[in-house]
């Protein structure tokens, strides 16, 4: 028996349908999270969680179908990178909140954030004939492009905790939301994870560069800004550890780190003459 794949046109339709189904489910989940947060009903948070988890299925299908259509993984073009980053972010949140049910309220900020990534995808050209350059192969390359997905997931959880902290701080204490110290600890923990995963991305990129060009570090603008992001995260963690930075100050610094990471990933390759321009097609 031979397995016949659907043709190119059918795959494109499947990608679009699955993508929009996922978006609708995530949107509904965001609504339930918001309602749960306002009303304090844990049932709404639970429904939001399960809707988001269900949304992962068509999202997986959309990514898989696109992979089959274009013949390469979701790392080459901006639109597919945004989709896979949203996927990683939501996946990481679901893993994190599956056990810590009290922290599901973070989804109120995180899910709309992931939806913004998916919405940004609509404004970008979705070309299908582009093939990966000759340098895009090897184990280090695979680690380099894969590690950014959970790294951004960790960044999103940390930034959501930070925003929720700042939002909640101005309001009277409520039992509906995770407490301020818990949100702060969550921000700290996921900043630590982002530090590890961003570090893995830099290390794998350096090893890949060494294999490709014989130089693991070229002080390229994107390399520099990745290092700056990593150093900023390191600074945040050191300030927390040695200078007792927590709460509001740590939340604002986390927002700064996140902004720099977004600048590094999405804007600098367009603005500067970088060796990373290749992936920005």
């Amino acid at each position, binding site marked *: 028996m031979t397995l016949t794949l659907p043709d190119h046109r059918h795959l494109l339709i499947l990608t679009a349908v699955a993508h929009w189904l996922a978006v609708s489910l995530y949107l509904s989940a965001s609504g339930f999270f918001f309602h749960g947060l306002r009303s304090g009903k844990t049932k709404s948070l639970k429904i939001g969680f399960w809707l988001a988890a269900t949304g992962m299925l068509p999202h997986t299908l959309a990514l898989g179908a696109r992979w089959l259509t274009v013949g390469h993984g979701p790392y080459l073009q901006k639109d597919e990178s945004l989709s896979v980053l949203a996927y990683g972010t939501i996946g990481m949140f679901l893993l994190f909140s599956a056990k*810590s049910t*009290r922290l599901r309220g973070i989804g109120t900020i995180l899910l709309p954030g992931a939806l913004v990534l998916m919405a940004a995808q609509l404004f970008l050209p979705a070309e299908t*004939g*582009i*093939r990966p*350059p*000759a*340098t895009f*192969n*090897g184990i280090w*390359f695979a680690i380099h492009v894969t590690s950014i997905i959970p790294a951004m997931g960790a960044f999103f959880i940390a930034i959501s905790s930070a925003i929720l902290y700042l939002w909640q701080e101005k309001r009277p204490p409520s039992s509906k939301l995770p*407490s301020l*110290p*818990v949100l*702060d*600890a*969550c921000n*700290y*923990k996921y900043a*630590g*994870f982002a*530090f*590890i995963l961003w*570090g*893995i991305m830099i*290390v794998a990129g*350096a*090893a*890949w560069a*060494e*294999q*490709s*060009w*014989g*130089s*693991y*570090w070229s*002080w390229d*603008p994107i390399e*520099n*800004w990745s*290092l*700056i992001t990593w*150093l*900023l995260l*390191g*600074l945040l*963690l*050191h*300030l927390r550890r*040695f*200078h007792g930075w927590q709460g509001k100050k740590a939340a604002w610094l986390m927002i700064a780190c996140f902004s720099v990471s977004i600048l590094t990933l999405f804007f600098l390759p367009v603005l*500067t003459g970088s060796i990373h321009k290749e992936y920005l097609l």
Partner: protein
Amino acid sequence: MVTARRPVDGRINIPPMRHLIRFLLSPFTIIAMMGAVGTASLMGTIIPQSVDKTPRFLAAWQAANPFKFVLIRLLQLDRIYTSVWFLTLIGIIACSLTCSLYYQIKRALRAQKLSPDSKTNPKPDPSCRANVTEKILRRVMRQRGYRPFAAGASPDNLIFIKNKAGKWGGVVFHLGLLCIILAGLWNASLQQRGLAILTVGETFTGQTGKWATTRTGALAGAFTPRLTARLAGFQPRYWNSGQVKTIRSTVSVTSGGGKSRIIPISINHPGYINGIKLFLSGDYGYALDLLLNSKSSHPILAHILLAAPARPNEAVLYDMTIPTTVYRLHINFHPDRSKPSMLLTSPSADLAVSVPEMPPLKTRLLPGQSIALPMGDTLTFNKVSYWTGIIFAKSYGIPLLYAGFGLCIAGAFLLYALPVKVACIQISPVRPQRQRGGAEYLRQISISGRTRRFQALFGLELQEIAIELQAAALVQ
């Protein structure tokens, strides 16, 4: 050992060495250094760096802003990463890391010997009552990844520890960073790199003057690899869209002993011989040999390197004047005349030869064909082949660098994913009391814990443990 002496007047006299160590260990120094490296990286992105720019660009820059240019040169901001101040900064970071590591190791070893309950005082929690036996307690804690800590064990006061290795996270992470910095400095001082441009069949003898570009470390001499390399083959492959899929080369290398080896190299797969790595550069194209047989002088060979076009249906254009002659050539080269392709399957060159005050002579030449020129000379399209760049690199400290990378990641993982958690559980008897549900609680559990990071999340975990213990006791 640096000690402080108390002089007669009562003031503490701190030796300069201790001052230095205090400075290096100060959190402010560490944070300032991180900020400085970040700022240097930022400046490296904004200010053009000489190593990436052509002499023409630098000359234009100097002409446009002479004062700014001189200032930038003076402060070495045009070569930040090899500047004296940046290397000093890295040196200070290395010293700070070494001192910090020494004290961190000492502290971790000391903590190894201490009982973890020295700072953990369980507070009685009246709401947490369960008939929990030690056996249930141990089972629940084991399921959560906690292990009993022998030093603090007593029947009523049990101490459990999770992620014991986590206390070495800081040491491992900083050791990794130190390895990376040392390897980077080692390589930056001694590395030797050279790019040779070769056409298929051409031999590179490894002499200094033959490099297209070289880069050597501050303490390294001129790069003269003791080997000869002949580019034996070159094979590009393309996707249907015309993008490059792979580039493969074979290099025949003869080392000092006279032994020859064929080394296949491709992008991301370098070759290795006698401590020298051979990388295939991504640049390639077509090398055209044109021979001018002149009646009045010796034959002139023009060796023209053309870059590969961006798309398969594009021709490569080139203009040149043949040296010491009046002939000006306009070349329109097609690698494959039969179909849109960038492979050298059916190459041809459309030539337009101009001589002053005469109409240009236009013709199409295939390799091996000749054309008679207006002044009685003959131009032959001798041959065409591929050219590519081979990077020869001698690097130092790469294993140390990879070890550093590994340690860094492992250390950060221990620090943030596996923080040490100590839970102290006290079981104290309470007066028998009939509850609403009918159960009679005889014991009260008091749980407390200690961790350095994420205390609030650990507090939630301890609450969950208490609930689990109550549930386990009820099941029993």
